[in-house]
């Protein structure tokens, strides 16, 4: 049964040299055209994309490294700042203590000075008072003696006399 006539009268009857050449020429021309107009640009863009992806990956890697470095830097800076702050606090504390001691010492010295001056003043006042009392006693004694003797003695002579007597009495005591 020859089915060939059904669909395809073409082809298998005899050898068509022209078809061979036509096939080759058409296929090769097609391949050349596609290479120039389609596959070439497409391959170019795919290559470009590959490069882009590679460069992006590199960039990302670099950025990651950079950020890690920065982070490390920041961390060390922070650590440094912390130690510095610690030092500052400690030195401030120490200074404060020193100052406190100084202030206390100064205050103590001041208090002592005040006390001493007060004591000195008291002493002076006491001496003054004693002197006043002595004087009063002398004048009273003179007055009394003049009253007793009935004889007017000059107050100055007597007071000298009595002062002497009292001084003697003081020494004797």
């Amino acid at each position, binding site marked *: 049964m020859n089915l060939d006539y*059904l*669909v*395809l009268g*073409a*082809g298998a009857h005899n050898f068509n*040299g022209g078809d061979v050449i*036509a*096939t080759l020429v058409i296929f090769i021309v097609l391949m050349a055209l596609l290479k120039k107009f389609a*596959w070439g640009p497409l391959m170019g863009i795919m290559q*470009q994309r590959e490069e882009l992806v590679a460069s992006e990956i590199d960039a990302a890697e670099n950025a990651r490294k950079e950020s890690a470095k920065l982070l490390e830097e920041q961390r060390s800076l922070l650590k440094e700042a912390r130690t510095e702050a610690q030092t500052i606090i400690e030195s401030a504390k120490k200074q404060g203590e020193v100052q406190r001691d100084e202030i206390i010492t100064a205050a103590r010295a001041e208090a002592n000075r005040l006390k001493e001056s007060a004591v000195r003043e008291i002493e002076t006042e006491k001496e003054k008072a004693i002197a006043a009392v002595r004087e009063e006693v002398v004048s009273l004694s003179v007055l009394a003696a003049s009253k007793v003797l009935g004889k007017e003695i000059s107050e100055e002579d007597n007071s000298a006399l009595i002062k002497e007597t009292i001084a003697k009495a003081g020494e004797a005591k």
Partner: protein
Amino acid sequence: MDHGAPELTIGFLTFNLSTVLMLVVTAAIVFLIAFIATRNLKLKPTGMQNFMEWVMDFVKGIIQSNMDWKTGGRFHILGITLIMFIAVANLLGLPFSGIIVGGDLWWKSPTADPTVTLTLAAMVMVLATYYGIKMRGTGNYFRTFVQPMSFMFPLKIVEEFANTLTLGLRLYGNIYAGEILLGLLAGMAGSGAVGFIGAIIPTMAWQGFSIFIGFIQAFIFTMLTMVYLSHKVSADH
């Protein structure tokens, strides 16, 4: 239903104009698809560019399954052109199969013509031999004919022709058979109302199957092309 072929003889060359026409149509369609798909190329692909890139990666996968990319990269363009050309050629016969003008059959799959398929197969084998000699040196290349044993020589010679024949005739047979069956079904559909109703379902089924076969055969042809090329080109076989 008998029809002839529109043949034209120039000198000693006979052209089957139908085959030539269909080859040109196939080439035009492939070129248009590829050309339109690769306009306005972007780094971030959209639409048709995705499809073409998928085809490229697919062929790249075929090549890489046979040889390393450093050797096989040069066959990339051949592979993409082959697979698209054959796929389109196989599918062309489906929609208008059997358009007859003036008693001659004009519209068919170009790959349903053994001349075309055998030409492509021979081209592949010639390329394989060329690259085999070019990349391995003449001496190394011809030494493979007597390896591993010298008595293999006749078998190796036969293998060259057998490869060519099977590569071409496999494609031809599949597409030709598909078109014959479609022709029979079309004839049945044209025979009357009962025949038409009876033929609808099988025609649809067979057309669907033919689409599948068309792609599969294009894939097989490209795959075997790369197998033969790698067989000739790489030294570790």
